[in-house]
């Protein structure tokens, strides 16, 4: 049931929280308004209670001024209209009741013509005789005042009595019992207040609903905006997984978290792309390198088989095929060696050895080649002990020495130096050949890269320096080449010293 989309889930939670907050605010505001209204009514009721109480102790107006006991509050109203207050003391059964006179200035507080006006009823607590009542009093007033009077303490000092204002139907009333024995009930209709509260509730609901709508819309927009880069990232990633490695995420907002993610992903994609391209190039180069020996074998054998030959001719063909096969074997061995280094499967011996001894052995090994090319080998070897694989390190030195001899001029020199520098074993091999063109230097250690395009012959696979680099790096060292054109190249191998 719960939607799986992040956008919808965020929106759902966001909406729920917004509704809870709005309902909380609305209910609180409603309660505050209601309390305020009721307190105002309480004050009004008590004010009127006080006035009626004072009126009870006025001397009967008839004894003072001969005026009628009860005066109509609105003198200019037509006489045939029924007076709003009935003074029941003129009736025979009210003779013993205390005198009551509602002052003119307060009579308007009990406007019986107003359907929502205040009403009152005054009864004697001794004989439950009605002393006075307003004509607009509700039917329940008579019953309530009788039961209420008995419950109200009379011994309390004057003032608001602990009679809790009550609501009956739509009417709100309170009462008081005077020490002199009169129970006074004052009330009013709640209708206007209730109507107003309803209006307040409606207003609050409307405002809350509006805020909710605006909030939801804003949230939807915000969530959509925040999540847009994700859909872009996923569509780009889909294209890349479909094989188009050149795709990149359009990361315009690099400041946001998703922008940073996009940047990280883009750099990952770029590296993947490069790695794929290199792998493809490597495979193409390897295939290319195998093509020449295979064409030699095909051409040689097809020529030989075209007609009957003598034994010498067949021997020549077989020898050429052998040379081609040897070349392929060397290439395949080099490729496998590199592949093992790439996969981290090449197991290196780790033992402490004197690199000077290794270098001296290598010098001895390449001596015949140097003699053949009339190149002089010069060395300055200081004892340096390193940790590593003796055979592999010897392979590096031999390879570099062979290169230095092969690319040297006749009667040239090869210098081999070994020393400790800045906590590293430094092996330097320099020659007096033509050097390396600046354009070739950065690519020297790339697989199948040949600075001299002509040296595609049998002995040169174009992988030698790449293998040297792989070996040195596996020993935690570095290899670099520098050159002064026309005056020779220099290779420097740096290896960490034995601990």
């Amino acid at each position, binding site marked *: 049931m719960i939607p799986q989309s992040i956008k919808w889930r965020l929106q759902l939670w966001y909406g729920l929280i917004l509704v809870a907050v709005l309902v909380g605010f609305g209910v609180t505001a409603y309660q505050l308004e209601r309390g305020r209204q009721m307190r105002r009514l309480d004050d009004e009721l008590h004010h009127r209670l006080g006035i009626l109480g004072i009126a009870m102790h006025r001397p009967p107006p008839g004894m003072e001024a001969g005026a009628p006991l009860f005066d109509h509050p609105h003198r200019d109203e037509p006489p045939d209209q029924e007076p709003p207050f009935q003074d029941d003391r003129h009736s025979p059964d009210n003779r013993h009741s205390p005198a009551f006179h509602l002052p003119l200035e307060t009579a308007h507080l009990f406007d019986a013509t107003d359907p929502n006006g205040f009403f009152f009823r005054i009864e004697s607590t001794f004989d439950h005789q009605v002393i006075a009542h307003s004509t607009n009093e509700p039917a329940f007033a008579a019953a309530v005042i009788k039961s209420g009077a008995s419950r109200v303490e009379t011994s309390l000092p004057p003032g608001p009595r602990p009679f809790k204002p009550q609501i009956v139907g739509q009417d709100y009333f309170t009462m008081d019992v005077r020490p002199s024995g009169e129970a006074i009930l004052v009330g009013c209709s709640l209708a206007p207040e209730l109507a107003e509260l309803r209006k307040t509730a409606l207003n609050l609901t409307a405002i809350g609903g509006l805020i909710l709508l605006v909030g939801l819309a804003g949230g939807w927009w915000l969530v959509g905006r925040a999540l847009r880069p994700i859909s872009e990232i996923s569509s780009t990633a889909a294209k890349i997984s479909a094989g188009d490695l050149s795709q990149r995420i359009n990361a315009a907002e690099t400041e946001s978290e998703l922008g940073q993610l996009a940047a990280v992903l883009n750099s990952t994609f770029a590296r993947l792309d490069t790695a794929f391209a290199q792998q493809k190039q490597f495979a*193409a180069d390897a295939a*290319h*390198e195998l*093509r*020449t020996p*295979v*064409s*030699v*074998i*095909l*051409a*040689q054998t*097809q*020529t030989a088989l*075209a*007609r009957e030959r003598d034994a010498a001719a067949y021997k020549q*063909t077989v020898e*050429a095929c052998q*040379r*081609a096969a040897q070349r392929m074997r060397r290439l395949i061995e080099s490729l496998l060696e590199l592949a093992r280094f790439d996969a981290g499967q090449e197991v290196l011996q780790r033992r402490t050895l004197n690199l000077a001894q290794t270098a001296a052995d290598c010098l001895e090994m390449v001596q015949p080649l140097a003699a053949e090319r009339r190149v002089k080998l010069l060395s300055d070897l200081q004892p340096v002990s390193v940790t590593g694989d003796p055979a592999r390190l010897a392979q590096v030195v031999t390879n570099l020495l062979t290169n230095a001899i092969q690319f040297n001029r006749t009667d040239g020199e090869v210098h081999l130096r070994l020393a400790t520098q800045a906590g590293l074993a430094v092996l330097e091999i320099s020659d007096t050949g033509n050097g390396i063109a600046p354009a070739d230097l950065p690519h020297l250690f790339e697989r199948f890269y040949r600075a*001299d*395009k*002509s*040296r*595609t*012959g049998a002995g040169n696979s174009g992988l030698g320096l790449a293998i040297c680099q792989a070996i040195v790096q596996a020993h935690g060292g570095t290899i670099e080449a520098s050159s002064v054109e026309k005056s020779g190249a220099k290779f420097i191998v740096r290896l960490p010293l034995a601990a």
Partner: protein
Amino acid sequence: MRILIVEDEPDLLASLAQALREEGYAVDTAANGDDGFFNAEGTDYDAIVLDVMLPGLDGWEILRRLRKTKSTPVLMLTARDQTRDRVKGLDSGADDYLVKPFDLQELFARLRAIIRRGVNKTTNVIEIGGLRVDTATRIVSLGNQPVELTAREYSLVEFLALHRGAVVTRTQLYEHLFDENESSLSNLLDVHVSNVRKKLGADLIVTRRGHGYCIE
């Protein structure tokens, strides 16, 4: 037909030269770009087999320079097989393109094709009256009867037939029928011509005294 092979792998060069010689071509060889360009520019070859990766001038450079002066048909040999390499080869003025490794039979067929195109022929068969020269099978027949010819005799007939109607000088014949290593004895050509006349009829090859030979 005289062909130049420029290839730096010695074993490949040797076997190609031998195979093409056995096919009846006169073959010159060059093992690097500089020698290759020198030969290609100095001699009117019927076709050049040119490797791309060469010491010295590479194949592209030789082709670029050669096209300034000569339209000799060129077949490029390369180990690169990607489309852009093939496009580059053909756009640089190569007449055809062969990717290593290749079968010799395919090399022969492509060579025949570019040589044929070089003299504006579209088929391998040339017919002159009752004479029929099949350049693919290297068989010459007269009135549907195959005639036995030596390789050199066949080459002579083929060359004159391909240039039918034109007078071919003795120098041209020497250049196209013999490679650089053969001593061009002046009467060797006359011997071949007279042998062909014995086998195919005396009036096939017309001698233009002081000019050369011609098949009309």
